[in-house]
């Protein structure tokens, strides 16, 4: 996928002015995040499970080579195949070759963020193979030629009415000409159209939520059942998974599953959790004859052992974006690449380079809500801070910001001067009128005051001055 992360500021501005998007985003505050809170409260063990989930992923990452080899051994023993893809290009080539090996014309695809990351759809289309997205949200955005705007709800940026318009346009030629107004009718129509596509598909391409080393299984979590149809009806099942998806045992999966659904949608359990192990067995009445797992690195292994390693614990629940005030204001597309929200601001610079994505780690107020809801306790603000530091080290920070920081650094290291300057600034601000408690415009601060008022400093001087007056330092224990 072509990144527009460089244009983040422009994207964000456009998003704020998009009325449909703002309508859709308003629902996030009462949707997933409220349901997550309720689910967490219903389960007294939730916090202990989060700790355990973090520890499991840390253990798996520390022994990643061992568990991947174990996984491969088990898959192979059952007649499946494991393919290693160091880069996105390798993964695209392997998948295309596999599809060609069975003469595939259409592919039933189950939602996979990694497949977006490697841009597999365009590649398959160029090879004359038609990938059909079967997750409802992915299907909608495939029809609209849009990228996903959320990692678990790809069409969350759209209103029901926009979906209805898309369906009339694309299903009309199939005989569905009535513009629908009810969600359940939209779901039923998509089900009907996609059912035949499932039955006709030659290959099912899915992601994986987890790879289980103990049994050589891929695990998939969905609500719709589309992943299950994708891995049951076609003659070949291809699993595309990145290296950090491997976990040791089924017991570990149980812990992770308990935090995944609750963190994502606030469900006690997703409707379908499916464990696939190898191809169809002797005597089975259905299932694919061929089972392949493509293991993608694409820059992840280089994160191991660094201060950024924690990002690899992510289980892609989407809670960080559901709770992020920045995501809530601008949606996912503004981030400009596959992974939006706080986890996207951490992953994207790693995967496509900090030069391209340096805006993203700055798109945070560091309010910390993302970290407070992350099921595997990824210190997201801390990781974004690391990226900001790297950006500064590499001189990627804009000149104005660098100069501002340099000036502040100069003052902060000289306390007496700092107090004199802030005291002076405080008095100057008072001249602009403190009466209303805010300023509608200020010189040098137009970027702020164009959209909101600037708060006035309280009467009584600077914090330092007030602190001193209240006895401040003297009463410190």
């Amino acid at each position, binding site marked *: 996928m072509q990144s527009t992360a460089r244009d983040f500021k422009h994207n964000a501005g456009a998003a704020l002015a998009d009325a449909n998007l703002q309508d*859709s985003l308003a*629902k996030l505050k009462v949707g997933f995040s409220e349901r997550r809170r309720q689910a967490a409260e219903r*389960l*007294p*063990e939730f916090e202990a499970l989060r700790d355990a989930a973090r520890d499991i992923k840390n253990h798996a990452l*520390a*022994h*990643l*080579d061992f568990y*991947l*080899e174990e996984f491969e051994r088990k898959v192979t023993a059952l007649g499946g195949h494991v*393919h*290693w893809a*160091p880069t996105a290009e390798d993964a695209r080539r392997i998948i295309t070759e596999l599809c060609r090996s069975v003469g595939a014309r259409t592919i039933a695809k189950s939602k996979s963020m990694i497949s977006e990351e490697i841009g597999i759809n365009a590649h398959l289309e160029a090879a004359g193979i038609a990938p059909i997205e079967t997750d*409802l949200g992915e299907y*909608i955005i495939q029809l609209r030629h849009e990228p996903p705007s959320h990692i678990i*709800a790809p*069409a969350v940026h759209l209103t*029901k009415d926009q979906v209805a318009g898309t369906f009339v346009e694309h299903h009309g030629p199939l005989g569905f000409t009535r513009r629908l107004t009810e*969600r*359940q009718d939209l779901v039923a129509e998509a*089900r009907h159209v996609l*059912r*035949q596509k*499932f039955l006709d598909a030659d290959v099912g391409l899915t992601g994986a939520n987890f790879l289980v*080393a*103990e*049994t050589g299984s891929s695990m998939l979590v969905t*609500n*719709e*059942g589309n992943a*299950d*149809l994708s891995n*049951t009806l076609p003659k070949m099942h291809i699993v595309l998974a990145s290296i950090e998806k491997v976990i*040791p045992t089924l*017991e*570990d*999966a149980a812990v992770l599953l*308990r935090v995944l659904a609750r963190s994502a949608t606030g469900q*006690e359990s997703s*409707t*379908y*959790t*499916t*464990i*696939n*192990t190898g191809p169809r*067995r002797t*005597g*089975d*009445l*259905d*299932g694919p004859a061929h089972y392949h797992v493509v*293991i993608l*690195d694409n820059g992840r292994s*280089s*994160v*191991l*052992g*660094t201060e950024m390693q924690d990002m690899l614990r992510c289980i892609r629940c989407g809670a960080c974006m559901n709770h992020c005030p920045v995501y809530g204001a601008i949606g996912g597309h503004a981030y400009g690449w596959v992974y939006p929200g706080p986890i996207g601001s951490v992953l994207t610079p790693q995967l496509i380079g900090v030069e391209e994505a340096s805006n993203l780690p700055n798109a945070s107020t560091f309010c910390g809500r993302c970290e407070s809801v992350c099921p595997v306790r990824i210190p997201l603000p801390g990781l974004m801070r690391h990226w900001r530091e790297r950006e500064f080290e590499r001189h990627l920070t804009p000149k104005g910001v660098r100069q501002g920081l340099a000036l502040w650094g100069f003052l902060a290291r000289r306390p007496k001067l700092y107090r004199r300057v802030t005291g002076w600034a405080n008095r100057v601000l008072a001249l602009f009128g403190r009466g209303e408690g805010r300023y509608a415009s200020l010189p040098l601060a137009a970027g702020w005051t164009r959209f909101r008022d600037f708060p006035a400093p309280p009467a009584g001087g600077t914090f330092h001055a007030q602190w001193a007056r209240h006895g401040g330092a003297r009463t410190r224990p």
Partner: protein
Amino acid sequence: MSDTANAARAQVLDGIRRSLRRGPLAGPAREAVEARLAAPVRGPSVARARLPQPQKVALFCQWAETNNATVARVAPTEVAAEVSAYLARNNLPAQAAMAPSPLLDRYDWASQKMLALRRGRGEGDDQVSITGAFAGIAETGTLVTVSGPDHPVSLNLLPDTHVVVVREDDIVAGYEDVWARLRERYGKDVLPRTVNTITGPSRTGDIEQAMELGAHGPRRMHVLVVHE
């Protein structure tokens, strides 16, 4: 494996080891992870499902209903009649695709003269399927099915209505108890092609985050909990 494939494999594994600043795991470090893999450790247990069997069954039924399934508690002699009655109550045709399972064959289907059963895999236009279940999970009202000659996976997915027969004795507390039963039946480290855990009918929250039932899988799920 071709040379390219071998090189790719080495590239990924060596990259991981370089970052972790070590070679392939060996000695006591390797023994420790092998031991963890051989004897899986359970995570924090969930108290709400640690109950005597009758209450466990009741909890299963309660969660299954919360997750939009319907539940009927029946004796073995009532299974076939309840299926017929359920289909009639919901204005569904008296015909179904049924899993070719010896466990299901024990019920008195012959008593239902009007009910037409076809044994085999699911087809795209099936209205109703009837399957057994390997286990039920009380913690979340989840059903567990395993693929095999007696249970084609397509029956769980293609029909509009999925009728599942689960025995009270097969209802357990949590996932971990299911894993233990799977190891008992299939052996350590070995699983059937597919283990499905299913919690209620298919659904989607993809339009405006509102859950709608019947996305790609069944719109309705009816669970018969059999007291044997």
